[in-house]
């Protein structure tokens, strides 16, 4: 692997990212599965970096999952997207920051389609007018939440309490990065580092002291495949895709996986559990699996936030081993507490997959 070669490509794919006054749009999946991540993102942006991130109470899903599982027609999706734009315009913001990669893809695709087919934009404007009487302007800047963290990665590094380094060996942690397909596969120029060697997460890993692990199936989809996961009958496919990735990364002995898509971390986390229980096969050390994090969680970790405030307890694969490696202190007994130390019991132990 010739890194200079990659660096050259990374240089070619730098995109413009607004540096303040963001209009934040939440993610269906992240809210449900990793609420702590979104909280952490806002906390870092507002408290650590003092940025203006606005969230409109009336914004909604972009219908992306519905659209990509084909129950929502394209016009409907576009008009819902247009409504989001309208809310942003009304609130006087111009920089759109979706928390979700599918949304990011949707917004990018819609804007691109409108560019090539202005008549479609016109049609959608009419739809929106007809349905809600709203008007909108095209966002001036569109960046995914991970782009923002990428932009401020060095600021975060400067404030960081911990590094992605094995405190015992002093070696950088081996980190596998997984990029959501819709981040740059559709429009390589819209993603930091392009489609083949995305840099958005690599930038964070390097900046925060980790070491990137590149492996053959790095680019492969996690397997969500929308309808392929949503319907139980198809889930075998969904799981098989992740399985393919795990098999491919296994020889590299990665310490952790970091992702920028809300869905992928959930799948890469849960499929490790399912594969273990179904096939008896576990990855990572001591049959405990490879911990999977969202970029917000990792940012929170290096900032030294309490792991349980980040919501790491919501992961099926335990995060404790990696916390120990980095040397992040945590209170075991508080892991499953509610607010004010309220005891909430503990999840059951899986049969095969070892958990803390």
């Amino acid at each position, binding site marked *: *692997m*010739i890194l200079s*070669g*990659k660096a*050259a*490509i990374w240089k070619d794919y730098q995109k413009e990212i607004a540096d303040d006054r963001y209009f934040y749009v939440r993610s269906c999946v992240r809210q449900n599965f990793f609420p702590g991540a979104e909280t952490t993102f806002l906390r870092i942006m507002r408290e650590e970096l003092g940025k203006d991130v606005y969230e409109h109470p009336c914004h909604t899903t972009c219908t992306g999952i519905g659209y990509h599982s084909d129950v929502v027609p394209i016009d409907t999706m576009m008009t819902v997207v247009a409504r989001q734009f309208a809310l942003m315009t009304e609130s006087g913001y111009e920089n759109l920051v979706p928390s979700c990669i599918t949304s990011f893809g949707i917004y990018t695709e819609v804007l691109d389609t409108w560019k090539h087919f202005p008549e479609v934009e016109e049609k959608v404007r009419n739809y929106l007018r007809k349905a809600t009487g709203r008007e909108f302007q095209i966002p001036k800047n569109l960046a995914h939440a991970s782009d923002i963290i990428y932009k401020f990665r060095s600021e975060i590094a400067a404030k960081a309490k911990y590094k992605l380094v094995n405190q015992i060996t002093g070696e950088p942690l081996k980190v596998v990065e997984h990029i959501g397909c819709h981040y740059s596969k559709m429009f390589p120029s819209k993603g930091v580092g*392009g*489609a*083949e*060697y995305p840099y958005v997460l690599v930038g964070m890993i390097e900046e925060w002291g980790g070491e990137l692990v*590149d*492996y*053959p*199936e*790095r*680019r492969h989809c996690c397997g969500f495949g929308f309808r392929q996961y949503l319907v139980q009958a198809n889930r075998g496919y969904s799981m098989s895709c992740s399985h393919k990735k795990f098999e491919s990364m296994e*020889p*590299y002995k990665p310490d952790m996986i970091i992702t920028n898509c809300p869905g992928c971390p959930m799948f890469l986390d849960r499929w490790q559990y399912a594969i273990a229980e179904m096939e008896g096969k576990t990855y990572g050390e001591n049959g405990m699996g490879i911990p999977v994090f969202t970029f917000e969680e990792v940012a929170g970790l290096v900032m030294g936030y309490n792991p349980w405030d980040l919501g790491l307890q919501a992961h099926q694969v335990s995060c404790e081993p990696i916390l120990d490696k980095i040397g992040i202190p945590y209170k075991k007994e508080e892991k499953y507490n509610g607010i004010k130390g309220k005891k909430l019991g503990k999840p059951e132990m899986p049969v095969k997959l070892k958990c803390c």
Partner: protein
Amino acid sequence: METATYLASLGFKTTLIEKSGQLGGKIRNWYKLFPNFSHSIEVFNHLQRGIDLSDVVVKLNTEVVAVEKMNPGFVLQLNNSEKLNADSIVICTGYDLFDARLKEEYGYGIYDNVITSAELEKMFASDKGIITKSGQPPKKIGFVHCVGSRDEKVGNTYCSKVCCVTGVKQAIEVKEMIPGCEVFNFYMDLRMFGMHFEAMYKKAQEEHGVNFVRGRLSECAETIDGAINLKVEDTLLGRPMKLSVDMLVLMVGMVPSEGTKKIGSLLGLEFGKNGFFKSRDQHSMANISNIPGVFMAGACINPITISHVFGHAHSAALMVASYLNNLPIENRVTEVV
């Protein structure tokens, strides 16, 4: 070189301006030539002999920095601050190889064992022979056709013409050097357009058992042991196929050379939409540019094989001769249908 030789021997005062330190251009980069595996150096020597025999003035390490149009003729300002009067100009700026790094998914310049066809030629010539980064002769080699050709993603929609047959030629050469090596050629179409090309293809199959897979390489990735994992569809079976090779050779196509762009803009020559020079007519006036007195020959007009370049060279010489003898046959006016 050939045009200059003929013009000089026809009695015209001919100057050959060469940007680099030696004549011959790209031909020196190739080891053996398709389809008869003769050494390219033989062709070069033939060219050189021509120059030696005729009194062509050769200016090496020389570039044209400015051109002044006189009526008639031109004044060429050279980089060595010398001025040169010319009644007619023949442009032979050739081609550049496609920059394989633009096909990011092939990992050229990133994966250790992904090389270009030109680099493989160097290996043929070198005494180390064909070796991977680790210094071992490869057990499996893949050849990817159409790299930088017929590909809108990199902006080259045209076929570079020579890669197919070069791919087959190199496959055979590899087999001859490392008989035990498994060779896979990934193609979309095998355009064996020339005489004896098809025979070469047949030879590759029959005598060397080269595997031809119809499918464009989609992506490759480096494995932990430095091999290259390939993902391609076996389109003739309609099944995705994966395999690993120890070395991947990219059959890079031809793109308009820097020289072509430069001299073209200096002279105000017309470019075709692929960036090569535009001929007055593709069929009947291939050598003739939009500017009277300026002629072109070779790969600066379009991708072309060495054998055809000679045809171009001779015809260009003829054009100049007729032009300078005021037999303006190239200005024949025929109505366009």
